[in-house]
């Protein structure tokens, strides 16, 4: 492993905190792979070695798990993972067109990263936000009701180093590494940040109010 002393110490501390969450050590593997991505920006050979040593597994066992899941990247990822949902519902509502225009605009295809290392594009499967179709995700934050123009604007802003806010979620999109650390189960103090619950989320409540329902009379 080529981690320097400080990195290795903090990785080991974090790994211990993760392992402590589970009755059986091996359960820590998925969060630990997220942790590795928070340091290296992908599942690096060093990271695999580190997980293997911590969990008393072979590197081959760790690799076999890492390659099964799409969120673990085998190559250095862009600072922003930009995914366009092209599962049926979003695709039909315009996701296919958004994908085509965005990919053309940025000049990279599926699972490819821009030369400046800023953006990795990806075609996504359904991300459980179909009521906001067509949907885009940036570092796993929700960008709802997209158009080709809005999607291109987001990516341009990200590449220009501007802060970008999702439709639902925190005040701004964090980097891939920062978000990977949250996915390893470490809070980042942003849970109370909010952009509103969203129109579709509240659509039924609004309709219920139209029927005379009030919150007090549950």
């Amino acid at each position, binding site marked *: 492993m080529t981690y320097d002393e400080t990195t290795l110490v903090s990785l080991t501390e974090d790994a211990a905190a993760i392992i402590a969450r589970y009755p059986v050590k091996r359960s820590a593997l998925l969060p630990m792979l997220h942790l590795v991505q928070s340091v290296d920006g992908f599942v690096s050979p060093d990271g695999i070695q580190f997980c293997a040593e911590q969990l008393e597994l072979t590197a081959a066992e760790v690799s076999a798990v890492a390659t099964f899941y799409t969120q673990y990247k085998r190559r250095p990822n862009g600072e922003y993972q930009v995914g366009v949902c092209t599962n049926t519902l979003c695709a039909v509502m315009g996701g296919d067109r958004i994908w085509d225009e965005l990919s053309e605009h940025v000049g990279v295809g599926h699972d490819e990263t821009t030369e400046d290392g800023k953006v990795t594009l990806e075609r996504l499967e*359904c991300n*459980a936000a179909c009521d906001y179709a067509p949907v885009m995700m940036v570092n796993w934050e929700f960008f709802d009701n997209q158009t080709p123009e809005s999607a291109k604007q987001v990516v341009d802003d990200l590449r220009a180093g501007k802060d970008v806010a999702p439709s639902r979620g925190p005040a701004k999109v964090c980097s891939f590494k920062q978000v990977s650390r949250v996915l390893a189960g470490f809070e980042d103090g942003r849970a109370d940040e909010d952009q509103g619950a969203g129109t579709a989320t509240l*659509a039924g409540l609004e309709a219920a109010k139209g029927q005379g329902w009030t919150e007090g009379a549950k």
Partner: protein
Amino acid sequence: MTVTLTPVLSATWGSDKSWSLDTYTEAGGYAPLKKALGMAPGDLVQAVKDSGLRGRGGAGFPTGMKWGFLPPDDGGPRYLVVNADESEPGTCKDIPTMMSAPHALIEGVIITSFAIGCNHAFIYLRGEVVHVYRRLLQAVREAYEAGHLGKNIHGSGFDLDVTVHAGAGAYICGEETALLDSLEGRRGQPRLKPPFPAVAGLYARPTVVNNVESVASVPAIVDKGVEWFTAMGTERSKGMGLFSLSGHVTRPGQYEAPLGITLRELLELAGGIREGHELKFWTPGGSSTPIFTQDHLDTPLDYESVGAAGSMLGTRALQLFDETTCVVRAVTRWTEFYKHESCGKCTPCREGTYWLTQILKRIEAGRGTQADIQQLLDTCDSIAGRSFCALGDGATSSIISSVTLFREEYEAHVEQGGCPFDHAASALFEYSDTPATEEAHA
């Protein structure tokens, strides 16, 4: 008359800081927990049995009965694992539930754990929703700080720890045994059943796996009682549920209503199909359920009626498509999804979804033959009922149902040598149907 909506889980979603412990508690939250801790665990299981609550994750298995399947206490650990993997195309109810009211789930987890004798519960959340994970992590921390979690909860002698675990992108991990393998740090592949998780689940110990919405419904049942719950719904499908409307509908979103409501009634509340268009086909319960048409507008959306009409209530993921939509395009895309997500463990699904995709892409592109349409059905035959888990069956649902209902549309692709539809007409924004590349270079 329109059926009255029944916001229960969604009741507080519009409140200020709806995700916080304070807001949840002010609205009456965690009072059901105190009540439950004063009851005998067996009585809680019985109450959930009596309520008729059925699993909200897709299969509709009676929740109380599932809890009752756990073997008697042998002194070793037993586990509750909440399935928060929500990845079935069209399904988008658990994510807003956890984003807007994570404490409803946490309270449900505590009551359920108490009822089944579990001291360590897990929430397996899909990894692709980081803000939901933030909210859950915070909610669990708040619950510990308030004494709702930890040792000797509110002096009851009951101990509980909750771990919120993020997955890493794999639809199959929603299948309960694949989820358990994944939670154990392995590739997410389904296990042979039996043994069922109730007997040998997480770490080979007795385990209950329940969907987010199932578990989050428990506090309200404890609070308001079995009769309140059974007053909603139909004879064998009790209570309320979140109906998720998406697609070509004026006001898409989450509508919490009694089971048995119809799409016609839901559409009335949601402003109808988008202006100037009419409904063509829809899924009642996600992409793994056979599609419906206008003929099913009045089918009560409960387990029995949807089943009798040839589909499944599934996750109440109502994806609505109007007459501009090419059914072959829609089905091809879903099938590519199943091919992508097939875990590869069994041959019928692994090979079958590959061939289905090949044939469908050929037909969609206008390079198919009439014989291909029959070949599709034959291939479905060799997958459905012959696969190791329900993913394989689900992959065939939209194909078989769409060929049955819209065979002429498949034939039109073959005859015309291409797709008869203008894809731009289906989109929710304007564009002309020239490929993006041509336009950019023009």
